[in-house]
């Protein structure tokens, strides 16, 4: 994956496939400690200990359910190449949290890329899985939740293509406004 945002899209798709009704994506840039954190949290069906242990093994995949595959191993390799780590916590019936860390200024770190388009793609499923996106750079925060947008829109769906086009650019501007360097 050429961009970290594509990894995030990939991991967040797992959450939707796992039946999550609420999805949270957070990106935190600590410019003072030179760290970047990507967090994807859901309330989907979760994984048992055995699945969790094998989740980052590329050759472990339950074809019937397609719960795991190449996505997590690829992200893990990126984290480790950039002096970071991948941490997954999960409980059956409760949900899963994937936390990826890396050194913000590491030469091998892929750029964050276009998170606006990622939020837009994930919001296509907003009726089934709500999305809360948070971007924090040092202390400055940008946050958006499809449930709040839906309230604001009334009977016009968040999934209206005009709303989704607005959303992509709103998110791009929001991230820039935090002073992001990712």
């Amino acid at each position, binding site marked *: 994956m050429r961009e970290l945002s594509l990894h995030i899209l990939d991991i967040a798709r797992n959450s939707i496939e796992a039946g999550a009704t609420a999805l949270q994506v957070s990106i935190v840039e600590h410019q003072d400690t030179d760290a970047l954190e990507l967090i994807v949290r859901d309330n989907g069906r979760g994984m048992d200990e055995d699945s969790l242990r094998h989740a980052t093994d590329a050759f472990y995949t339950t074809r019937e359910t397609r719960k795991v595959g190449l996505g997590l191993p690829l992200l893990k390799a990126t984290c480790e190449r950039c002096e970071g780590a991948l941490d997954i916590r999960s409980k059956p019936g409760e949900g899963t949290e994937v936390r990826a860390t890396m050194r913000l200024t590491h030469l091998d770190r892929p750029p964050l890329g276009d998170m606006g388009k990622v939020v*837009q793609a994930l919001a*296509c499923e907003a009726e089934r899985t709500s999305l809360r996106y948070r971007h924090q750079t040092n202390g400055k925060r940008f946050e958006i939740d499809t449930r709040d947008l839906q309230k604001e829109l009334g*009977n016009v769906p968040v999934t209206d*293509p005009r709303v989704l*086009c607005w959303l992509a650019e*709103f998110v791009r501007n929001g991230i820039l406004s935090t002073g992001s360097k990712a």
Partner: protein
Amino acid sequence: MKTREELRAIRERAREALAVRDSEGGPRVVVAMGTCGIAAGAREIVSALLDELSSRELTDVSVTQTGCRGLCDREPMVEVIVPGKTGVTYCRLTPQAMRRIVADHLVNGQVVTEYAIGAGPEA
């Protein structure tokens, strides 16, 4: 710069159309969004698709997503389902091809054979 005010303007415009439109049973575009699809450019396909639907105000078309379809080397892929017609799967898409499919298939009812890999539920 996109603002909340612009969102309100979209809402007001969309509300006028809601009254006359029957939202049930419109065409669907299903985008394959497995790891393979995403790595091959599915995000850009979704973005081009939404942009084209938005500028043509084709608001009865729903965009949904699915996982790996098992033909990873032919990604990015989408399936176009028009009610009453057989579904068509398109593969090895580019954003430009996606825009053409909106114009030719969704607007004019012409299958874009260049990118189609098969038609119908058995294909």
